[in-house]
């Protein structure tokens, strides 16, 4: 009869040990995320109400609601998406499908990677110089959204590039070899099969933009505005900035107000992220190869 030798038993023990370490680490990662949400719910939940969401701050921002900040965040993020997504996707298509692999494109790729590492406060200064002053946009939603867009471009380009490169080259070659042009191949073969990844990248960029504070600091966000923005040249409030203001700059704000604001912000981001995960599941189930 076959009896497992000592070496094999030791190997199995090591295997088990390694597996339990990995699962422990996973729990550690999961734990803070769960705690943050629980904490916010406990501390901010009681202050949360329809009135809190749908009314303006009053009494020097120590009471009332956060409606202008929610609207402002939606404006900023929406405009940022409109600006950065087409630009980013088109740039990625060029880099992936048309650009030859030479020094110029390698430098461009390097720049994109570096741009992703620039701290957001630097982006804010750039936005102040380039959009607010040089392009004379003034401190406005437009300038802030452009700054956010510049910050998000590398994220979108990188994720789109990855999705495009995930479509095997053999599909492209098969398409070219029967007389389809490059554009037709992109339209009928490459894009339909990379859309899931591209969309996921976009959604990720959206949630990043929603939480960004520093980049919009000098470019279009006000501490407190008693009215809602009417067009892209107005200033606006934003949730992240409002949170920063009421937690550090204003005296006498009830704790629960800050926590409730954070809860609203995080819920918005979570909804968007959940959407992205759902989308990925849906598309993965329809994968064609």
């Amino acid at each position, binding site marked *: 009869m076959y009896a497992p030798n000592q070496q094999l038993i030791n190997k199995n023990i090591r295997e088990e040990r390694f597996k339990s370490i990995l699962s422990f680490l996973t729990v550690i990662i999961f734990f803070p995320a769960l705690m943050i949400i629980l904490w916010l719910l406990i501390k901010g939940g009681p202050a949360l109400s329809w009135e809190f969401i749908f009314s303006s701050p009053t009494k020097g921002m120590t009471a009332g609601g956060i409606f202008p900040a929610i609207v402002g965040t939606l404006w900023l993020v929406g405009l940022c998406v409109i600006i950065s997504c087409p630009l980013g996707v088109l740039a990625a298509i060029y880099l992936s499908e048309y650009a030859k692999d030479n020094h110029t494109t390698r430098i461009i790729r390097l720049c994109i990677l570096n741009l992703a590492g620039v701290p957001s406060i630097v982006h804010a200064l750039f936005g102040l110089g380039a959009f607010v002053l040089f392009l004379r946009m003034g401190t406005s939603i437009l300038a802030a959204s452009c700054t956010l867009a510049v910050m998000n471009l590398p994220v979108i380009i990188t994720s789109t590039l990855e999705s495009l490169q995930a479509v095997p080259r*053999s*599909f492209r070659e*098969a398409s070219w070899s*029967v*007389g389809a042009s490059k554009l037709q191949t992109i339209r*009928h073969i490459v894009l339909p099969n990379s859309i899931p990844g591209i969309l996921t990248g976009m959604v990720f960029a959206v949630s990043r933009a929603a939480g960004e504070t520093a980049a919009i600091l000098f470019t279009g966000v006000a501490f407190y505005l008693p009215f809602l923005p009417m067009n892209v040249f107005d200033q606006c409030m934003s949730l992240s900035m409002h949170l920063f203001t009421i937690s550090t700059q204003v005296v006498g704000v009830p704790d629960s107000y800050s926590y409730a604001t954070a809860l609203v912000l995080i819920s918005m981001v979570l909804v968007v992220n959940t959407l992205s995960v759902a989308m990925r599941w849906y598309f993965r189930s329809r994968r064609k*190869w």
Partner: protein
Amino acid sequence: MKKKIEIQNLHVSHGSKWAVENLNFDVYENEILAIIGPANAGKSTLLKSINRMTDFSDGTRVKGTIKLDGEDIHAFADSTWLRQKIGMVSPLPVGLPMSIIDNVTYAPRMAGMKDKITLMERAEDCLRKAALWDEVKDRLDGLATKLSGGQQQRLTIARALSHRPEVLLLDEFSIAIDPVTTMKIEDVLLELKKDMTIVCVTNVIHQARRLGDRTAMMLEGHLLDIDSNQRIFSGQVNDRRTHDYIEGVFG
């Protein structure tokens, strides 16, 4: 006989070394030219430069002239028109990530054909020629990427025929197909050469003997021999190595 493809002083390199060096030969209209030779002989590179798939690989250089119907294929920067006239089957079969029917109608649709009935007829005709129709006729809407390797290879043959090319380039079209089906497709090819010119790279020497009107022997980027099958396979060759390769005493 009318010359369909003329190849003059063709050099192709991927990087520093020539993969194909100084090729000079013609392919006549309505013939099947078989190309044999060991690995790394430049057979596939030759095929890819005939339909300018070489355009798509960075670092591939093509020197020399290739003419199709007397016209230089490098006359225009764009090469899509060329591949609309030339069908190609590559050795690793690739079903496009779409349904079987969409695969076979892809080329004509990209060329601008819209009529559904004509497309269906064309698809059935091509699938029958590739000996695949009976196996897939009940699941034309199924994904092509889910077909077996041999089925995908026959699908690529059907796709290569679907835009009614004047020239068909076959690169080891039968490596994943069983002998019986291979024979069926070979019969179809013999039938097809009434309407088109076929260049067939093969590792199966018997296939070259059965199928070809003429056979070319390539070795390390050079053309050793090109002659009628009658002469090549009866030992009347220019180069001793061709004879050795055919007889299997190579190396």
